[in-house]
Each structure stands twice: as C-alpha cells, then as structure tokens.
C-alpha cells in the first residue's frame, strides 16, 4: 500500500530532489532566526501543496555525517562504509508531487530553489526533477510468482 502509487487520473508524478549536501556535513551553522525562517518556508510550501492536492510525500533526511553505504557480503550480511568522495551530492530532502503538467513540477521546483538562506537571501539551490516511473510493463512481470527469487541460479 504505497501512497506513491496512487495517481489521480490525467496527472503525473514527479520527484523533486534537494541534492545540496556534501560529505561529512552536519547541521548548517546559520543564525537561529534564519534557520527558523527556512523551516517556516518549507512548512508553508508543504501546506500549499497539500491544499492543492498535489503533495504525495515529503521528507527531510538527517545530515550526511550520519550516512552509510551498505553492500551484502557473500553470506548476505551487511558491510557498511561511511567514507564518501568529497564531490558526492547528498540528498537533503525531497517532495513527490502529483501535477497536471511538467511545467507545474518545474514551477514548484523553482519555488523550492528560492528558499531563504542566511540573511533571508534566496539559496538558489539546483532542484533535480525526475518523473516517477509507472509499474514495470506486464511482460516484465510475467510468471514472476513462479520464478526462483534466491540470489543465485548457477
């Protein structure tokens, strides 16, 4: 039961990503007033999108200093790693919106881009906009219930 699968007829879902964090970064050292203004902006945005019936899901993530990369060892147990290249972009937060046209998704992204930073100046963040894919085509899922799902066949 995923909220992200429910789409109104004739609308399209887009993921708007704020990829603004860098490796090792923690809570931004902004004056508390500026931090509060930023959070108030984000809350007002969420409320507007909710009332327009366009908000599917919105989340903020904890900071990159807590991020881990996980792979499976040969026995399936997790191997975790906390070292990332300095150039890596980290997701800070995202929105899934259900809109009538791509242009509306871009307009929402532009609003997010201009969120206030220190001193109230717009941050001018690049917001990555991605269409959410529908379910995989039926032929791809044919007979999947009967397929072996273990990790290896040979």
């Amino acid at each position, binding site marked *: *039961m*995923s909220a*992200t*699968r429910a789409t109104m007829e004739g609308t399209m879902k887009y*993921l708007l990503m704020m990829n603004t964090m860098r490796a090792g970064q923690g809570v931004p050292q902004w004056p508390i007033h500026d931090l509060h203004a930023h959070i108030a902006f984000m809350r007002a945005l*969420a409320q507007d999108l*909710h009332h327009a019936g366009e908000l599917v899901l*919105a*989340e*903020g*993530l*904890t900071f990159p200093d*807590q*991020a*881990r*990369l*996980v*792979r*499976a*060892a040969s026995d*399936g*147990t*997790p*191997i*975790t790693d906390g070292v990332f290249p300095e*150039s890596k*972009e*980290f*997701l800070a*937060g995202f929105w*899934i919106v259900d809109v009538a046209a791509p242009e509306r998704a*871009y*307009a929402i992204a*532009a*609003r997010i*881009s*201009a969120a206030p930073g220190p001193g109230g100046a*717009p941050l*001018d*963040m*690049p*917001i*990555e*906009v*991605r*269409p*959410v*894919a529908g379910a*995989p085509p039926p032929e*791809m*899922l*044919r007979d*999947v*219930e009967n*397929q072996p*799902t*273990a*990790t*290896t*066949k040979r």
Partner: protein
Amino acid sequence: MRYMLLMTGTCAGVDHYRAWSEKDIQAHFAYLQKLNRELTGSGEFVATAPLAPPQQALTVRAGKDGAPVTDGVFPESKEFLLGYWIVDVDCPERACAIAARLSAGPGPGGVPTNMPIEVRQVMTARTADLT
C-alpha cells in the same frame, strides 16, 4: 525510526542494465517484489518508487522573477537516484540488513549485483504532521 534506502547509478550503469536479458530482469523484479511483500508483512514498509531513467532528469532553479530555469546537462560521473525504499524499523542495524538484501539482488545470470545502497535516516515528521 524511519530510514531511506537509496539505489543510485550513473547513466552508463543504466545503459548496462538495459542490456540485461528479459529473464534476468524478471528475476530481479521478482526478488524486489518478494522483499517488498516481506517488508509489508513485517509492518516495516513505508514507501517505494522507481524513477524514470536519468536521461529524463532536469535541474531547476528560479530566475530573477521566480520563473523556473531548467537545465538538462549533467557530468557523466553524476550518480542518479534509480529508486528508493522508506522503511520503519526498530534499529539502524535492521535498516542496514534490508539494504544488504537490496544489494544482493540478482543481476545477469543470477549473480548478485552487489550494488551499494545508501542508508539515510529520515528526519522530519510525516507529511501528514506538516500539513
């Protein structure tokens, strides 16, 4: 505590995936569907979504008048999000264990992809609490 598990890849990696045989793609989807069912059964599943290919990605900024300015040019090395899972678990170790399951999903010939999965704790209240 809620965690977001992110599966990422470059455009080159996505092209490589498109060359998989239909049987291998089916086996991979079946593995993910089984995992989704397990997480739903355990009450840990919150949300998932596959994304359209990175070739359709754009970045958007606001122009001076607030109108969107779009850009579709990215460095070749850019890691794009391919899909994500949000899970609600008792401890970080459980989130890592689920990430390891995703990492061990079968690739060509049934060999595990060993894809790195980024694990991030979700910070905010649920969407419903914000509105």
